[in-house]
């Protein structure tokens, strides 16, 4: 279940004075959500007297809980009357959409399959078919069931016989308030899980849809003759807000509903607890879903709210084979249960593989209903039948609440305590009171009222209050102040959103705690990334034991004797945790040390982000494992957290010490990662990898890039996508006379900062955009190499001291700073080519873009161009400094330049390089997904930069344009080349916000302010890819013309390369969503830009003379402005669609010509096709150049 704050709920005193009115005017767009009666407010604290009112207002950019505290503390002018506040949580109900087309029961993933259509009604399952037959239509018709869901489809044949349409309501804000119809547009808008309400309604009280093969005659629903009051609380994408549930409950109660059936749930809330209590007091039987989760995805598994309240029956799931709806295969949906203490109020309905009415398809009843969504209406129907059968007895109870409680008891007592495959202990643990048996329930006589006991009051956060204030008696809540309650509620909400907090609570449910346990929990909450600043500060105090107001935390486990609190030792001065770690590296190749002139510049100390490190080093992003199979050696790992290394910036540079090599690859790779994260505004994610075999193959995220510093005995270093690893080689140098590298010594590629940065860039780029592995035109490979070189080159300029020394040596001329411009000096010299591997400072090469196809030569044109941009910008920026230093003459005096001037010049150079690096990296989000060219890279770069730097003071973009023009790298299809025309054009306004986009974005569930683990981020990305694929394919199936603005080919068939067969895609057109990622980056004006970048790829086979030659790729990068889900004025919008059409004949011709023409690695392609070096594409690029003319 994904939850995100959306709006703020504020509870204000409503004593008849001006409090309410002033609060309404003080809070932006405030609307009344509910009026609380004194009795409904169960707490004895602050507001025991008087009426209160809940208002809903907008939240601002703060963490909503920080805002809530501010409101209560008197912010927003509502001080006088605000009693409490909490975020209005927007929840996406985790319910999987039935697969398009698949309508049968699905036994995959461990799900049990029922014997036939509608099996759950059978005697050996819910018994609803027998039970509904046993209760007369007349009696049933007296009962009113409120059905809270996403609305219904009036045209569907499963519609119940008695719909109370005159009274129906809609609280979602989507569509008219007096219509609970599902307003999903009529043209089949593809929405994940659309029509949830229609399906649960059919299970609840569905009518007779008429004869259908394979189905027993009769109505569909469990209580088909009852009256149904439809209340719409979830919108068309099954998102529901706390406030809409609250309103729905209140409305159901006010309409005298007997039963509430809600196949949904969400996050705990005080307002919701109040609404539950009011309903319970009014005798309404509340049945809601226990919740679902997807196996293998780390998410909370405890019962959701309101089902978790003891005044609500939590509908859990039991499968056709009697097993709990749990412990299924990975990626399969299963039902929530627990914590154990909550299971006394849970009851299991039969799921999955129930029927599932398909919205918008009046005649279709799928059979893949799943989740506790399908279980809930069964329990509710049983309750309604029981009420119908015992109506008169119930009416005679002296108090309203007794009616509801009697129903609950009858259902609980009749439930099956064992099933075909589960014993009593398992049933209790996972189903709760048992498996639903409606027929047996009917036989239960109503209890005499003297035997009815009120269920415990619904309280949104009491258990958390106990934990927070350290008292386990259950009394503490009555004395806890408002602020403490708010803290507790925030924590309880976090527990529902963070898998590790949830797991901790389940483990410690009903157990004894000690101080250490409690601290563990508080630390988990604090570190969840979800806590507000206010709560974090509060927890910080609790965790450090330095709460001035109390004598330290006291904590007593339930049932245990009070013990003396252990006084925490008073800590002394604690230094702040450092944010940076300093490490020494060779900034330039170690061979330079041989020359006295460069001795001091070869080593620098750099700082990298501080993180706790295990030996290796192994951190969050990287793991350095130093095995050298060719030499039969394993080099023990360096422990950079060792005190001896911490105090002296790591090991001193040494070629003969493998541990220094480990330190160096770590430091340089971390700096490269930081450059990417800084520029892209999101954490670096490595490419995923496969685990398992055969059908069990799963694609899982790779948390850490592995680095092998001594993997190869070759003049080579490469990134292996298959292993998600960097492999570095070493080789004996036999250098030409006069080079710094001595003949016979070894050259280590791991000791070249340039090579490490270069390879790390390959890995990062692969994590972001795997599409560039396809070498479809001469620029693709060249771009790969050039981009990695650009990153390495621009990183040179971040070694401030080095730049300054070079400035002095070169007397302020950047272009003359030779050491900085050549990449990987030793590597190049060692291999016998005099000079640096790729020397970008040498005079203009004698080859041009138009007729150079060799990957490295072509790439070097791009790198050189970007280097010239750096020079030209530096000249502009340095001009005034030189003028100042020379009294306007522009001519420096002879001799060394002043250190201050060198310092300032170095700073300018460093800054320009940093800005340029950021621009270049940012551009990759705006590049087409396949078939990149230098020209499209420039366009992406200009576009990306214009997005974040609106007005250009420093003319970076113009500098890029000029140099690209000079090098003849401009895109050929532009009539005029200017910064404006180079920007990608945005789609026309009428195509920018297609209907499918809004549902896709809603389905993405992006929580911009959430801090997630990288593993979760990459899991979410793949879930989002699936969402986008679903949504888009359905939209395209309905309207193929939607392909055009996206650059996609409509009605593309699927091609199986193994069999050579093609078949029509069931999805309108064949395409693949490679990635959906969210980026947040600061604009130059200080605001934050939020983008969703989606990458879509298509491919088709190309045949020449009847035989398959290659797969031709096309696709589209969508830059999406997420807009605001609830603001119709700000819909999600496609900012840019950067595509390469599969239908472009030009592109196809060019690629055929390129692939069949002669280019550099001809010999390799000849013998090994694309796979020439055991599937290591980069090994080929980096190995010795093939023979070429």
């Amino acid at each position, binding site marked *: 279940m994904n939850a995100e704050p959306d709006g703020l709920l504020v509870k204000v005193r409503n004593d008849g004075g001006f409090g309410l009115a002033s609060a309404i005017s003080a809070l932006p767009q405030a609307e009344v959500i509910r009026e609380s009666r004194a009795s409904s407010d169960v707490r004895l604290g602050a507001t025991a007297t008087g009426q209160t009112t809940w208002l809903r207002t907008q939240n601002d950019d703060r963490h909503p809980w920080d805002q809530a505290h501010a409101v209560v503390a008197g912010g927003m002018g509502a001080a006088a009357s605000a009693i409490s506040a909490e975020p209005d949580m927007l929840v996406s109900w985790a319910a999987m959409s039935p697969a398009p087309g698949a309508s049968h029961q699905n036994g995959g993933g461990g799900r049990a399959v029922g014997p036939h259509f509608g099996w759950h009604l059978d005697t050996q399952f819910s018994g609803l078919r027998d039970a509904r037959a046993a209760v007369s239509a007349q009696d049933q018709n007296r009962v009113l069931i409120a059905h809270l869901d996403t609305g219904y489809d009036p045209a569907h044949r499963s519609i119940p016989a008695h719909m109370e349409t005159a009274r129906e309501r809609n609280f979602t804000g989507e569509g008219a308030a007096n219509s609970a119809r599902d307003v999903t547009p009529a043209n089949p808008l593809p929405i994940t899980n659309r029509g949830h309400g229609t399906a649960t309604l059919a299970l609840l009280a569905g009518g007779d849809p008429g004869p259908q093969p394979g189905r027993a005659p009769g109505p569909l629903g469990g209580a088909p003759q009852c009256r149904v009051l439809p209340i719409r609380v979830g919108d068309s994408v099954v998102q529901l807000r706390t406030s809409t549930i609250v309103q729905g409950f209140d409305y159901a109660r006010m309409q005298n509903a007997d039963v509430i059936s809600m196949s949904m749930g969400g996050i705990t809330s005080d307002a919701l607890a109040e609404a539950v209590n009011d309903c319970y007091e009014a005798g309404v039987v509340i049945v809601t879903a226990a919740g679902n989760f997807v196996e293998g995805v780390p998410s909370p598994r405890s019962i959701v709210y309101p089902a978790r309240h003891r005044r609500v029956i939590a509908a859990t799931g039991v499968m056709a084979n009697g097993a709990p709806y749990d412990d299924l295969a990975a990626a399969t949906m299963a039902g929530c249960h627990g914590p154990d203490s909550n299971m006394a109020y849970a009851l299991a309905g039969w799921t999955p593989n129930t029927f599932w009415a398909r919205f918008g398809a009046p005649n279709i009843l799928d059979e893949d209903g799943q989740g506790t969504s399908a279980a809930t209406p069964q329990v509710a129907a049983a309750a309604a039948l029981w009420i119908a059968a015992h109506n008169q007895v119930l009416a005679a109870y002296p108090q309203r609440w007794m009616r509801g409680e009697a129903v609950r008891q009858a259902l609980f007592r009749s439930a099956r305590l064992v099933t075909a495959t589960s014993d009593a202990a398992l049933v209790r643990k996972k189903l709760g009171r048992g498996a639903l048996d409606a027929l047996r329930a009917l036989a239960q006589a109503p209890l005499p009222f003297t035997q009815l006991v009120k269920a415990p009051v619904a309280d949104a956060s009491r258990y958390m209050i106990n934990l927070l204030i350290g008292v386990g008696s259950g009394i503490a809540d009555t004395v806890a102040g408002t602020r403490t309650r708010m803290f507790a509620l925030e924590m309880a909400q976090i527990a529902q959103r963070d898998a590790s907090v949830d797991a901790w609570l389940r483990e410690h449910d009903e157990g004894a705690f000690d101080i250490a346990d409690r601290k563990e929990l508080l630390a988990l909450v604090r570190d969840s990334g979800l806590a507000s600043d206010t709560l974090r500060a509060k927890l910080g105090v609790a965790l450090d034991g330095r709460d001035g107001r109390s004598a330290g935390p006291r904590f007593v486990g339930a049932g245990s004797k009070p013990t003396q609190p252990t006084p925490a030792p008073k800590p002394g001065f604690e230094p702040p945790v450092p944010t940076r770690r300093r490490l020494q590296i060779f900034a330039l190749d170690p061979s330079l040390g041989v020359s006295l002139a460069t001795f001091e510049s070869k080593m620098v100390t750099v700082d990298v982000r501080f993180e706790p490190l295990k030996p290796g080093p192994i951190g969050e992003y990287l793991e350095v494992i130093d095995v050298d199979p060719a030499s039969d050696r394993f*080099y*023990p790992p360096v422990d950079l957290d060792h005190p001896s290394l911490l105090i002296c910036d790591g090991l001193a540079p040494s070629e003969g010490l493998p541990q220094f090599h480990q330190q160096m690859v770590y430091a340089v790779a971390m700096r490269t990662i930081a450059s990417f994260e800084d520029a892209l505004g999101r954490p670096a994610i490595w490419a995923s990898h496969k685990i398992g075999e055969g059908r069990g193959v799963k694609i899982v995220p790779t948390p850490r890039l592995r680095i092998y510093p001594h993997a190869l005995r070759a003049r080579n270093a490469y990134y292996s996508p298959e292993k998600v690893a960097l492999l570095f080689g070493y080789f*004996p140098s*036999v250098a030409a006379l006069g080079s710094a590298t001595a003949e016979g010594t070894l050259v280590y590629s791991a000791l070249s900062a340039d090579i490490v940065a270069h390879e790390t860039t390959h890995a990062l780029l692969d994590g972001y955009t795997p599409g560039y592995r396809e070498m479809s035109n001469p620029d693709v490979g060249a771009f790969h190499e050039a981009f990695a070189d650009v990153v390495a080159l621009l990183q040179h300029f971040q070694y401030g001291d080095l730049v300054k020394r070079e400035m002095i040596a070169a007397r302020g001329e950047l272009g003359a700073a030779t050491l900085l411009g050549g990449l990987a000096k030793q590597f190049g010299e060692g291999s016998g080519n005099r000079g640096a591997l790729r020397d970008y400072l040498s005079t203009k090469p004698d080859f041009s873009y138009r007729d150079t196809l060799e990957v490295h030569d072509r790439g070097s044109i791009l790198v050189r161009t970007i280097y010239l941009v750096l020079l030209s910008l530096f000249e502009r920026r340095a001009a005034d400094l030189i003028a100042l230093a020379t009294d306007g003459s522009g001519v420096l005096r002879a001799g060394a330049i002043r250190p201050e001037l060198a310092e300032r010049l170095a700073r300018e150079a460093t800054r320009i390089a940093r800005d340029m690096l950021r621009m270049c990296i940012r551009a990759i989000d705006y590049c087409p997904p396949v078939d990149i060219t230098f020209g499209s890279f420039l366009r992406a770069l200009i576009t990306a930069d214009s997005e974040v730097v609106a007005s250009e003071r420093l003319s970076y973009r113009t500098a890029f344009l000029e140099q690209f023009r000079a090098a003849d790298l401009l895109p050929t299809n532009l009539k005029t080349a200017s910064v404006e025309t180079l920007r990608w054009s945005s789609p026309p306004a009428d195509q920018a916000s297609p209907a499918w986009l809004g549902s896709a974005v809603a389905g993405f569930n992006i929580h911009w302010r959430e801090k997630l683990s990288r593993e979760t981020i990459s899991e979410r990305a793949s879930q989002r890819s699936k969402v986008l694929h679903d949504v888009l394919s359905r939209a395209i199936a309905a309207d193929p013309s939607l392909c055009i603005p996206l650059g996609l080919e409509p009605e593309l068939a699927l091609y199986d390369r193994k069999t050579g067969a093609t078949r029509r895609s069931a999805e309108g057109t064949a395409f693949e969503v490679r990635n959906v990622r969210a980026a947040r980056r600061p604009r130059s004006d200080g605001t934050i830009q939020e983008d969703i970048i989606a990458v879509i790829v298509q491919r088709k086979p190309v045949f020449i003379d009847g035989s398959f030659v290659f797969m031709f790729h096309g696709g589209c990068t969508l830059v999406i402005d997420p807009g605001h889900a609830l603001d119709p004025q700000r819909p999600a919008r496609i900012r840019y669609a950067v595509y390469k059409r599969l239908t472009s004949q030009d592109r196809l011709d060019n690629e055929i010509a390129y692939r069949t023409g002669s280019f550099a690695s001809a010999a390799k392609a*000849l013998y090994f096709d694309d796979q020439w070096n055991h*599937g290591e594409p980069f090994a080929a690029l980096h*190995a010795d150049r093939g*023979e070429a003319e």
Partner: protein
Amino acid sequence: MPKITLRLYCHGLGDCHLLKFEADAGAPFWMLIDCGIHSSTKGGKALVREVVEDIRSCTDRLDVVVGTHEHWDHNSGFIQAQDLFENFEVGEVWLAWTENPADDQAKALDKYKGDALAAVRGAAAALALDEGLSGAAERLGSLLGFVFGATGDISRTARENLRALSPVVRYLEPGQFAPLPAGLDDFRVYVLAPSRNPKLFGMVDSASETYSMGPQWSGLVGGLTNGLAIREGVLSPSSDPLAPFDSAVGIKLSDLLEGEVVYAPDDLDARFFAEHYTGPNPAASATSTAAKLKAAKDDQSWRRIDSDWLGASSELALQLDSRTNNTSLVLAIETVATGKVLLFAADAQVGNWKGWSEAKFKLLAGQEKPVEVADLLARTVFYKVGHHGSRNATRGPGGLEAMSADDLIAFIPTDQVMAKKVGWSDIPARALLEHLGEKTKGRIVMSDSGWIQSGGARPQGTNAAWFGGIEVGLSKVDPKRGLYVELTF
């Protein structure tokens, strides 16, 4: 009129050309250039033997047998049909200077080729044992098989068989006229390549030796050779000059992998290694889905690099291959009266072509200036396309572009189907075919063409005058199949 008849065998992916020189008087002079077939060809041995029997049906004397270079598809016949060759009277054997055991430069090259071949073979064998890389081993193996012969029968043996065919073995130098017997003055045989320029083979001059291979190659060969020796326990890492660190640094990897050395439980290095490199055995004791998933996540085997360093062997194999191709003996045969030239380029790749212009021929009586290669190319009327039509085996500038004769015809011994099968996706290269098509005005004869293989008629729409001169000879084994084409100049 003196004439030369070419019988170009179309038996598959491999070269075998029989030349019959006829002067106005005297017995014809027979020259055989190469005799081999790709090792992957099904029934290759039978095909080659059929070819040799066909040669025997033409003549029982071969005045000269030319071996262009040491590759299986050019010399397998000297093993596969060794007995049949005994039925011939062989006058001389011609080889390039690179095969001369008495030549220092050739010895350096030959030693390099031998060492590299051994390293590549060793690596292929080692790779085959590594499950994850067995595909690479297979590809490497097919390359080895192709160029160097199947297991056991290596092309080096074939070369020696060839050498043994006659006591007179000539090693030809670029710029030389290959000696023809008296009475054949109507013809000249120019030797264009291989050049003596060491750069074209990646050789360098160094003080210690007259010739040695460049650092990249020797580093590659040395790294592999020593690594393999360490792997087999023949070389101790401590005495390996190519090991990266002093022998005291690090722990012996094989001990850790085999668990032979028992480490104390607090040996952090050994534990680190076990946790992060070998990892837990994923198959062990995982029964539930969740446990299996966890085991699969902990599994480290997918990112181990035990054999990745051997990947350098494919690089080496490629270099070895192209280096060997560049030792190709290239002959231009001129009919003096007409000035027409027949060019046999063997498998010459670009490096070989680059050296052609360095071949300087002596001034002959009656000439104003010595013949230059450019002149020979301009008069070329028949071009045996290099290396089965691969894209880097016909040089454009200074090569094909210089062939300006109006009546140029090109012959490509090739087999597209077989080439595809062994992973050569682009033989013959489309771009080259287009270029050749322009130069020859469509007169390209490909040995695998349907019209040859089915022994049928000349292809439709082709130049009747030209193709009219081509005779297709049928196979005796299968009379529906063409065995050779014959042209007369």
